[in-house]
């Protein structure tokens, strides 16, 4: 039975504080220094940092190892775990190992299909799905057993996260899925990055209508746009991404050298709006390969210093 908060992130959220998380991707190599450098940019600016797990199916340093590097630098990691590459034996093993290394936050995902990555010829595992993974971590934490029912010497008390995409279709079904993830054991949710505030607000209202915002901490995702090209690319090619015309026009309407500034301005406006929305308990800033912007954004959003 869980008694005390598993992590700093959980403690802050259970105290009703507005949380800030960011993301960083491990390197496509064996050099731990790369992740430490990224961590240094984020330290003190956010409450926890997500470490991705072979994101987009591209082989990178493992999230468990990268998370440990961050931990050693004094940063709290959120270890992401996808079910694409490992079966239930390996996944459970890694959960136990991560806990033993001091990792206390886990985000359970299915993962991008390997056709997008560096090894499209690999065997696709998907032994269990993200819902099963959430339930597995909860069972380990609350019942103290693994999936086979074997008692664990020390139940891994992890703060369990799941992803939600308010913009994927079918729209009506998304709240049902959120409810299912909460039932399975999700303690917090990080959403896909938001540009369409109207649609996100509707989703939040539907979730609140089901009482879900009382049961789970929702962290709204934001990504600052670097250029008009990036905005167009994301709108067209990334599934489950909703970028309204107004935003695309704003990005296209400024001279190239001012595009990044405009992107950050839009990001700050979005954050300000999200802070006003009931049920939103924090933000998750995904500034991939632009981590140096996270601190300025958090600062300009008036969210520094972190508690």
């Amino acid at each position, binding site marked *: 039975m869980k008694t005390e908060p598993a992590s700093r992130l959980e403690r802050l959220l259970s105290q009703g504080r507005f949380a800030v998380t960011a993301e960083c991707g491990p390197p496509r190599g064996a050099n731990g220094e790369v992740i430490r450098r990224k961590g240094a940019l984020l330290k003190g600016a956010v409450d926890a940092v997500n470490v991705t797990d072979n994101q987009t199916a591209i082989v990178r340093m493992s999230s468990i190892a990268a998370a440990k590097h961050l931990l050693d630098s004094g940063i709290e990691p959120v270890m992401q775990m996808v079910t694409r590459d490992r079966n239930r034996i390996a996944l459970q093993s890694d959960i136990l190992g991560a806990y033993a290394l001091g990792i206390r936050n886990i985000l359970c995902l299915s993962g991008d299909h390997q056709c997008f990555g560096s090894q499209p010829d690999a065997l696709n595992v998907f032994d269990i799905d993200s819902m099963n993974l959430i339930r597995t971590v909860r069972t380990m934490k609350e019942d103290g057993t693994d999936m086979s029912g074997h008692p664990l010497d020390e139940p891994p008390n992890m703060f369990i996260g799941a992803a939600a*995409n308010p913009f994927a279709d079918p729209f009506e079904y998304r709240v049902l899925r959120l409810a299912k993830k909460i039932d399975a054991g999700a303690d917090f949710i990080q959403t896909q990055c938001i540009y369409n505030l109207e649609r996100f607000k509707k989703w939040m209202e539907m979730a609140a209508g089901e009482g879900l915002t009382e049961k789970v901490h929702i962290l709204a995702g934001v990504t600052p746009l670097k250029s008009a090209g990036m905005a167009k690319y994301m709108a067209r090619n990334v599934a489950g991404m909703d970028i309204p015309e107004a935003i695309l026009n704003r990005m296209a309407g400024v001279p190239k050298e001012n595009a990044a500034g405009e992107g950050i301005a839009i990001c700050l406006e979005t954050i300000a709006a999200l802070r006003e929305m009931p049920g939103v308990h924090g933000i998750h800033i995904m500034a991939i390969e632009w981590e140096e912007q996270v601190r300025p954004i958090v600062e300009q959003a008036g969210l520094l210093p972190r508690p």
Partner: protein
Amino acid sequence: MIVGEQKPIKEILKMTAPHHKLLVLGCGTCVETCFAGGEDEVAALASLLRLASRKDGRSLHIEEFTVERQCEDAFIAEAAEAVARNEAVLSLACGAGVQAVARRFPRFRVLPGVNTTFIGVLEHRGVFTEECSGCGDCQLAMFGGVCPFSRCAKKLLNGPCGGSRNGKCEVNADTDCAWHLIIERLTALGRLNELRTYVPPKNWQPSLSGGPRRLIREDHIL
């Protein structure tokens, strides 16, 4: 039915290159229906192989023969004389048929001329789609008659993922998102709330993960 596609001709030529007397053996069941290895395909392939070998000045004698199915020994046996007259057999059956022929004629090299792909149906003229992966534990009742193991690229039991776009899978814009179909189907049946129920991890033992499978019907064995 089992669906397959004839191998690229270059690959077949390379595989059959060491042999000068070749039997092209067709199958009149599944592979005939998907235009990969029936009698007509045997004739056309034999003609193409002759043209290719003559062009290169290579001697290649081809015999053509088709049996009802290559997955039953009684039918394979009918090809025995034809096999004996040749050095090697290019079987256009599915992988099961090729192996059955090889088992029956172990002193002859049996080569596969077809890439066997999936268990599927004819969706419409000229289009075959994968429907079943033979998991050994059919749960179609739970999913409105749409299989998430075979038709969801991530085998999700509690789908969908966030990657579908306009009802199509993130992997291939021509492929329907299976979970979209499941939701549509269950909605039409008035059973969408059933998806609220958590589906636990699948037991893969009845499927290929448990090793190659056998079905024994004692009531048919004397």
